[in-house]
């Protein structure tokens, strides 16, 4: 999966957008990894993530904490979203100390995640970058929409839904916060960042003109 790789934005609005997650390696340490990933969730929840979830069960805006935790299994991929690099550093410190045993991945601005790792006494092992979009790029939604939709790496947050919530905000039917929550819900894994979405919507709404 590349589900947290292609989060679009500029340095300013990507700052403070972190995903910390874990999964097992199939055929290597998969057996019994469910219990380890439960330990991971216990640790990250101490730091009050803005969203969390599991690819098996769903995200914390749709499912309860207990449901997500109790249904973690060996094929789970468990995620938590944070906005504060100091918190991410502490999360990584605790994960290192706990020796959970499953792979831990952190997504965010590379210079920020590098600082978080150093503060936690960790060295990055493997790194991934996005090389951007190719092909029929004219078929893509506008960049501002993609800043909002690309936070769900499985493309479950439709650009059509962004259009809908923008209309509702313009008409006074929803606040930016409520709209951000609505955008968060379809992202099954729980990697969508409602705090960042709210900021992006606040910036975008004055620029949008309703064409009716």
């Amino acid at each position, binding site marked *: 999966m590349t589900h947290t790789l292609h989060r679009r934005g500029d340095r300013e609005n990507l700052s403070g957008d972190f995903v910390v997650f874990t999964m097992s390696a199939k055929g290597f*340490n998969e057996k019994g990894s469910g219990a380890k990933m439960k330990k991971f969730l216990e640790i990250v929840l101490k730091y009050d993530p803005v969203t969390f979830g599991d690819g098996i069960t769903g995200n914390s805006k749709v499912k309860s904490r207990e449901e997500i935790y109790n249904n973690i299994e060996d094929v789970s991929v468990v995620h938590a979203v944070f906005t504060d690099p100091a918190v991410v550093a502490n999360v990584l410190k605790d994960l290192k100390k706990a020796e959970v045993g499953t792979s831990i991945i952190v997504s965010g601005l590379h210079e920020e995640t590098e600082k978080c790792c150093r503060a936690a006494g960790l060295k990055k092992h493997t790194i991934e970058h996005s090389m951007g979009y190719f092909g029929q790029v004219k078929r893509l*939604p506008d960049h501002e929409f*993609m800043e909002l939709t690309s936070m769900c790496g499985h493309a479950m947050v439709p650009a059509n839904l962004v259009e809908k919530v923008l209309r509702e905000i313009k008409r006074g039917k929803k606040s930016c916060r409520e709209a951000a929550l609505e955008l968060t819900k379809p992202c099954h894994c729980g990697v969508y960042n409602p705090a960042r979405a709210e900021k992006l919507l606040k910036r975008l709404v004055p620029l949008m003109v309703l064409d009716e």
Partner: protein
Amino acid sequence: MKIDPSKCIGCGKCKSYCAMWGGIMRFERDPKRPQRVICAINEDECVECGVCLSSGCCPTDALYQPELEWPRILRKNFSDPKKVHPETRIPGRGTEEMKTNEVTGRFPRGKFGMAFELGRPGVGTRFRDVEKVAMAVAGLGLSFEENNPVTKLMIDRKTGRINPEVLDEKVLSAIVEFLIPEEMLPRVLDALDRVAQQVDTVFVGDIISRVARDGSVPYIDVIRGRNRFLSINGKSNVGLGRPLANV
């Protein structure tokens, strides 16, 4: 996905939850009662991702997903992240890639992992286009990641040819994943540019490297030196998985 015309009231709410940009629902007249306007799904364009159904947006529960058979079931396998991929046992797009590299050793020093993810976001892709990208990669003599659901659809991994039964199937996204020796990166980038002109979809490019002993990432200078886009954000495996592979 289908809409039960007897239940549909033609409100169009489902269109906002369609993962395809612009939506693949259309308004039409109920053929049995032409004074009624209902919604219908363009089945050929539907990728069976289930976002509309999962949203609960339909006020009359008119949306339903029938039992899917081969090859249409492929659409759901690739498009619905709630589905654990049957071959790889991973939910979502079904590939671990760099996330577990400290354990699997998939990407050793001296090599880069690369992936082209077709169809995302919101455009979708047919396997016909996935095959074009796979053949462009195979043409360079590169090998595909074994534990990847697209690789498992290939009938000939030396050429990148995909099972012809599925070429017309449309999915939300599909990833072609492969490994390259570091020195081949410029040739791969050239091939990427050529195949980008031939596909009727979009794709994103990913590149992965084991961090060098001095902390550097070997592909950064190569890509930026060619004035190509490389993201300022991305993913980092922090090396805590066990047991450690010798890479």
